C-alpha cells in the first residue's frame, strides 16, 4: 500500500483557505519594531501620609522608573503632606487647617508609622534599622524618582481643603489636578496602585 501525503489544496479550493499563502502582514515582521516593547506605565495614588506607605510608594515609583516605566504619582488627602517643603512647619489658612498641620507635621522627613509610632520612637527606630541595612529614606527615594522623571501630581481638592498652597510644595511638583485627570491617567496605565 502506498501512503499518500494529502496536501491541503487537494481537498479545499484555494479561495476558501483564508489566504494561507498570503504573506504575513509586513507590519508584524517589521525589523524596526520587532522585539521592541511599548513603554509600560504605572500610576500610584498616594492617599496615605504614613511612613510605611510612603516608603512603599517611593520604592515602587523609583524602581519602576529605573526599569524604564513611565510613572505618575497622584498625591491626595494625607498623601499630600509628604510633598510639603521640609522647612515649612505649619500649613493652612484658618485655625482648623492650621491645627491639622500641627497635629500632622508636614514634610517627608516627619512621617509617622500607622502603628507602633510611640510618639516618634517607632519612626526613629525604623530609620536606624533602614540605615543599618542600607535602605534609602522615603525622601531620598523621592528625589531619585524625580531624577528618573517620575511625575508628581497633587490633588487640587485636597490642597484646597487642607489649606496647602502650591508654593509650599517641593520643587518639581506639577500643577494640581482633579479626579477626572487622575482617572484618565489610571485608565491609560498598565498598572495602578492605591497606597
Amino acid at each position, binding site marked *: 500500500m502506498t501512503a499518500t501525503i494529502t496536501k491541503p489544496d487537494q481537498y479545499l479550493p484555494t479561495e476558501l483557505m483564508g489566504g494561507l499563502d498570503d504573506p504575513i502582514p509586513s507590519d508584524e515582521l517589521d525589523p524596526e519594531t520587532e522585539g521592541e516593547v511599548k513603554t509600560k506605565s504605572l500610576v500610584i495614588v498616594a492617599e496615605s501620609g504614613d511612613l510605611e506607605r510612603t516608603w512603599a510608594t517611593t*520604592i515602587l515609583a*523609583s*524602581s519602576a*522608573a*529605573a*526599569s*524604564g516605566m513611565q510613572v505618575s504619582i497622584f498625591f491626595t488627602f494625607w498623601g499630600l503632606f509628604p510633598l510639603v517643603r521640609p522647612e515649612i512647619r505649619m500649613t493652612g489658612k484658618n485655625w482648623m487647617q492650621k491645627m491639622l498641620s500641627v497635629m500632622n507635621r508636614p514634610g517627608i522627613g516627619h512621617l509617622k508609622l500607622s502603628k507602633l509610632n510611640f510618639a516618634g520612637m517607632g519612626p526613629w527606630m525604623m530609620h536606624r534599622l533602614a540605615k543599618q*541595612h*542600607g*535602605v*534609602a529614606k522615603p525622601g531620598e*527615594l523621592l528625589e*531619585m524618582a524625580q*531624577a*528618573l522623571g517620575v511625575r508628581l501630581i497633587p490633588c487640587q481638592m485636597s490642597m484646597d481643603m487642607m489649606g496647602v498652597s502650591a508654593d509650599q510644595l517641593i520643587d518639581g511638583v506639577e500643577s494640581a489636578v482633579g479626579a477626572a485627570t487622575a482617572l484618565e491617567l489610571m485608565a491609560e496605565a498598565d498598572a495602578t496602585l492605591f497606597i
Partner: protein
Amino acid sequence: MTTIEIAQRVDARGLSCPLPIVRTAIAIKSLSSGDLIEVLATDPGSTKDFTAWAKTTGNELVEQGVEDGVFRFLLRRK
C-alpha cells in the same frame, strides 16, 4: 588584546533594594549608547534584579560574577 573601557562605576555595596537598580538607572542616563557600566553590589537579590532589569530596559548584561560576597555586573547601555 582588547581593552574593556568602563565608562562609569556604581558602588552599591551595602545598599538595599531598590538602590542598586535605581542608582544604576540614574548613572546610565549620562552614558552614550554602547558604553559600559560596572556595578558592585552586596544585596543578594541583585543577581536576579539586574537580569530582570537588563531584560526590561534593553540594556545588555555583558558579564556578572561574585567575589568575596560582592556581586559584579557589567552592563552595556543600549
